[in-house]
């Protein structure tokens, strides 16, 4: 692991995981709304 990678770990990666988690949450909510609307 180089220094650049280590720095990225400490700063940007938690944010990237939060973004990925938020996208997933939105996807689940949309699927649930789709289920409510059409079944």
């Amino acid at each position, binding site marked *: 692991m180089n220094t650049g990678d280590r720095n990225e*770990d400490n700063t940007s990666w938690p944010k990237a995981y939060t973004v990925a*988690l938020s996208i997933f949450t939105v996807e689940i909510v949309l*699927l649930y709304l789709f289920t409510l609307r059409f079944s």
Partner: protein
Amino acid sequence: MNRLDYLVLFATILAIPLYGLWRTRGRASLRQYLRGDSSIHWATIGLSVLATQAGPITFLSMPGQAYESGIGFIQNYFGQPLALIAVCAVFVPIYQRLKVYTAYQYLGQRFDRKTQLLGAFLFLVQRGLAAGITIYAPAIVLSALLGWRLNLTIWLAGGLVIIYTVLGGTKVVSITQRYQMIVILVGMAIAFAVAIYRLSPDLSFQNTLSVAGKMGKLEAVNFSVDPHKRYTFWSGLIGGFFLALSYFGADQSQVQRYLAGGSLRESRLGLLFNAAVKVPMQFFILLLGAIVFMFYQFEKPPIYFNQPAFERAMQTGHAPQLAALQTQFDDVFRQKQDAIRTVSSASPDQRDVAMARLHDFEAQARDVRERTKAVLVQAGVDPKSKESDYVFITFILQQMPHGIVGLLIAVILCATMSATAAALNALGTTTAVDFYRPLIRPHASDHHYVVAAQALTAAWGFVAIAVASFASLVENLIEAGNILGSIFYGSILGLFLAAFFIRRVSGSAVFFAALFAQALVFILFATTNIGYLWYNFIGCAAVLILAPILQQTLFRSAEMSADV
């Protein structure tokens, strides 16, 4: 299929491997052959990971699954984004830091040689069989419907993959998967658009979805806690999480994909790309199946989608029975069409009565199809794969314009080739790195190991073709791969999680805990009908609970491995 279709098909499946081989020409070092090089971008890694998982079963069976049972299968993927984030945070940094070729080398460094070999062995058994199914699944369907010889179809896909994977190694797999996945995504988008275009003009798209929903095809999320229900939000989130964590964290066919870039950043971005796109992609593939279902509510479907089997039964003295069933089916279909029109035009207070009639006709149609299948079994022509596997391919062959048919058959073969290439690449690498190098030739040259990895990759290719040639599936193709994975992955994941999170545990304790967990899963599989996704959780939990107990009892004096 006409000449244009064959031209599109062969141009697509041949051009991509040829381009990949051209890009990777020249002699490679062992590191380049097994891990690619640092020029591989995160987008290539992302598409490569996506293509490795997708496979032909996704595109062949999944629309059929939605046609039969609705889109609830989407829930199996709910644990995946969470698992991918966990893999990015925990697994990838360790693999990149230790510069391993295989995930199981880490087990050897953290515990001991026998734990490394156990992890590698469980992977080889599971992936070797799964690679055979990956080749067999599309071959059995394509050969039945297109009249191709089964063995020729198996050798066409399998042989081509062996050649380019052996020659180009990890880098050629990544490059070809990128373009194969682009062909797949474009092909499926075209299929989706054509399917919507071909829907009946009698109903708006929104009304079509409403009717499909009322017929039970569009329940994407179900919060039931019944453990015997196969697809629920909870089984998908928890069982799916453990399945995906094992698959992405401990299955060499995936580990090799995201280590191909060389840098931690590229690996992580490629995996996070998958976390974002996987659920929507599967949703649209399943929705395509529901749309095909609605198409066949207005356009009469075949009474049995595996028509060659049906025609064979007609020629074996069962024609009178099948003709009578066909007449009943036609009659029910006409009444069902009327019922659907009534549902779509009924006032809200009359809709429940109209829906009840529609459900009644749907049940009658299902009953006629079941009786048809019983006649086929009686006639001895019952195919080994499930009828729903023939739904989407029948729709493609009968309803798509020429050229697009060739492209969509190419999609299925591209998916076969990309998933098989990743599997062979990983099987060859694991056998060379975890078994051949430490146990047979510990001090040979770099080039010797490249040649050994090539020979072992080719050998696994022939094993996969042999499995495909003698395989007869007992269930739906889509289920077979996932069930196989779920049986083995739990204990493999347990090994890795014990390595990461349980500090004071020795290799022997973990080794015997994994053996016990694997035996427990086999027994549960043979004697109960628990939803298969739970086996991942059970196998993994058994290792994590048992390893510390064994450590404190039988292996109390065993030396601890250094923490990594």
